[in-house]
């Protein structure tokens, strides 16, 4: 166990270092645009991390996770529309809004399990999607262009792509740290315990429902942060951020990377988006390659990409149902 933990720490540090070195290296090779691509990848990594927290550790398969991203993004977009640009206000607002939505929907959703949980979270995700689509004051289905990025204490420092990149990187590192603290805490062990045997955890006096709800809200807030960053990166928000396909993409990232290890989620996001980008560069019909590739990965790389970094891992935990 101790060995596994240090290994996790090592890989985490390695991944973060790679991210930190990317902009200067890309610049040196005249590939500055990569910084931009990587910002988006890291933003999705934050979202995947937040999903992994509940999916990988708590077996709560949220199929409406994109809604939190969208709510976070809209919080920034709508604030900007009303001329509020201060990031130290809007980003916490985005997280709070997503967290509140997670609290309300989680309180209902967590009454159900397994596939029913998947579907009820989808339902809430769709409600958020259609609500955003009908906000014609904020662009409705076309989305809303944000004419600038958030300011930091009145300073438009994020206008620079590289500055934004490092801001996203710091957020990613912070989320990672928070997530690993949560996972390692007593609270995290209760969540994992509920996944393995709910009845036993209840029997020894833990309120499974309340623990799960707290984890769900935390994940929602983290995804809300990803949304706020996405809005800043794209300088555009759209209901498309909340579509069920996006929620599906996030699940795929987490499963692809390997559930239940935090770096797995990050690896999954990187691999998924990079593959998509690279294959799309080959042929317009890249999905014909991507689809079978996914199948092969699940077939032969059981436990996801993260597994490749472990000598031997514990066998996959039980079904989600």
């Amino acid at each position, binding site marked *: 166990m101790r060995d596994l933990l240090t290994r996790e720490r090592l890989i985490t540090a390695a991944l973060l270092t790679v991210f930190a070195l990317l902009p200067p290296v890309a610049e040196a090779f005249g590939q500055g645009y990569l910084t931009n691509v990587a910002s988006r990848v890291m933003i999705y990594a934050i979202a995947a991390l937040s999903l992994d927290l509940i999916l990988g550790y708590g077996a709560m398969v949220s199929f409406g996770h994109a809604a939190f991203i969208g709510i976070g993004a809209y919080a920034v977009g709508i604030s900007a529309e009303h001329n509020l640009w201060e990031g130290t206000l809007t980003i916490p607002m985005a997280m709070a809004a997503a967290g509140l939505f997670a609290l309300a929907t989680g309180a209902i959703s967590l009454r159900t399990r397994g596939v029913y949980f998947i579907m009820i979270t989808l339902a809430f995700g769709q409600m958020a999607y259609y609500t955003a689509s009908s906000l014609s004051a904020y662009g409705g289905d076309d989305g809303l*262009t944000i004419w600038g990025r958030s300011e930091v204490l009145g300073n438009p420092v994020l206008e620079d792509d590289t500055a934004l990149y490092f801001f996203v990187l710091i957020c990613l590192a912070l989320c990672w740290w928070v997530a690993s603290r949560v996972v390692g805490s007593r609270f995290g062990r209760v969540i994992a315990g509920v996944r393995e045997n709910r009845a036993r955890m209840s029997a020894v006096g833990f309120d499974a429902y309340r623990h799960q709800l707290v984890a769900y809200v935390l994940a929602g807030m983290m995804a809300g942060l990803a949304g706020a960053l996405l809005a800043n990166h794209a300088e555009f928000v759209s209901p*498309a951020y909340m579509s069920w396909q996006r929620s599906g993409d996030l699940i795929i990232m987490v499963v692809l990377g390997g559930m239940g290890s935090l770096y797995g989620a990050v690896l999954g996001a990187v691999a998924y988006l990079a593959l998509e980008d690279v294959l799309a560069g080959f042929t317009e019909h890249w999905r014909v390659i991507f689809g079978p590739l996914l199948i092969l990965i699940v077939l032969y790389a059981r436990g996801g990409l993260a597994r490749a970094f472990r000598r031997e891992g514990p066998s996959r935990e039980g079904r989600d149902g």
Partner: protein
Amino acid sequence: MGRGIKALALAAGMTVAGALGAAQAAEPLKIGMMVTLSGPPAVLGNHIRDGFQLFVDENGGKLGGRDVEMIVVDDELKPDVALTKVKELLERDKVDFVAGIVFSNILQAVFRPVTESETFLIGANAGTSTFAGRGCNKYFFSTSWQNDQIHEVMGKYAQEKGFKKVFLMAPNYQAGKDSINGFKRYYEGEVVDEVYTKLGNLDFSAELAKIAAAKPDAMFTFMPGGMGVNLVRQFNQAGLADSVTFLSAFTVDGTTLPATKDAALGLFSSSQWTPDMDNEANKKFVTAYEAKYDSVPSLYSSQGYDAAQLIDSAVAAVGGDLSDKDAVIAALKKADFASVRGDFKFNNNHFPIQDFYLVKAVKRDDGAYHTTVVEKVFDDYGDVHAKDCRME
């Protein structure tokens, strides 16, 4: 671990190689063609790209005397994907022109990065009102129309024809709402009902029953792509065609006719172009297009073709030298080419001033379906937003 990782490593290697290769060959005129090639609306993107490609091929792979390197990218109809990819086009590929853009929300997302990098943006379809009015930009030119115009044609026609009661229906998204507003700008009669359907809705039986109950003289609708195919066929199956005049925008066109077939015959639509328009440029275009792609071109194909012609004319006018941006803009502004739609000149907001027609679907002797002009509704018509555009 297995194949996933290996594939990744391989793929990563290839990107680097690809990027380096691209950096070495700097000479050709680089055009980033951004269109939607995923999902149901992919057909629109295909047509624009095919039309554009056709002109380039006809011209020996050159535009304005320079060899063309075309980089086609799929925006997947996701604004943030479009944004990432357009930044790649601008920063990695350093394209001279970005062309295409099927949907308004994609145009919204890419407009700012493209124009701020002082790259020419040639819109071949989406014509959002923002960018025709207040948000107009000297780097942006459109070879299609301003969205409202197509709908206004139908409103004006309904008004002139004296329809007393009209039923309006559009998908529940911004373009749908703009469509209804565009129609109402010229139509002053009674609107018996306005119905907004879910985007991507496939079954219109509920709406058709409402239409039958409301007994309007005519209905106006905007249902692009597969939605239009369904609506037209279900309209026909319900037998409404006898009592209700069907007016539409982007619903009966070259992309939907192969699927609606007879069901669309006689239904009205509005357009700035039809395949049987009688001018030299158009005859050449349609013949070549049918020979190459074995299908009748749609208005989207014609817009793609004109986009290529526009770039060709401007690059030729500046002798292939794009360094003086204002000179290129001036050359683009002249629109010195024979548009397949006939009259074409740019307004102050860089949207075309052109004629608009009432068109209807007909069947050709060889069994192919296409649209044909019934009457001209607007002559040399510029859009209403142009007055808000503060551009020289």
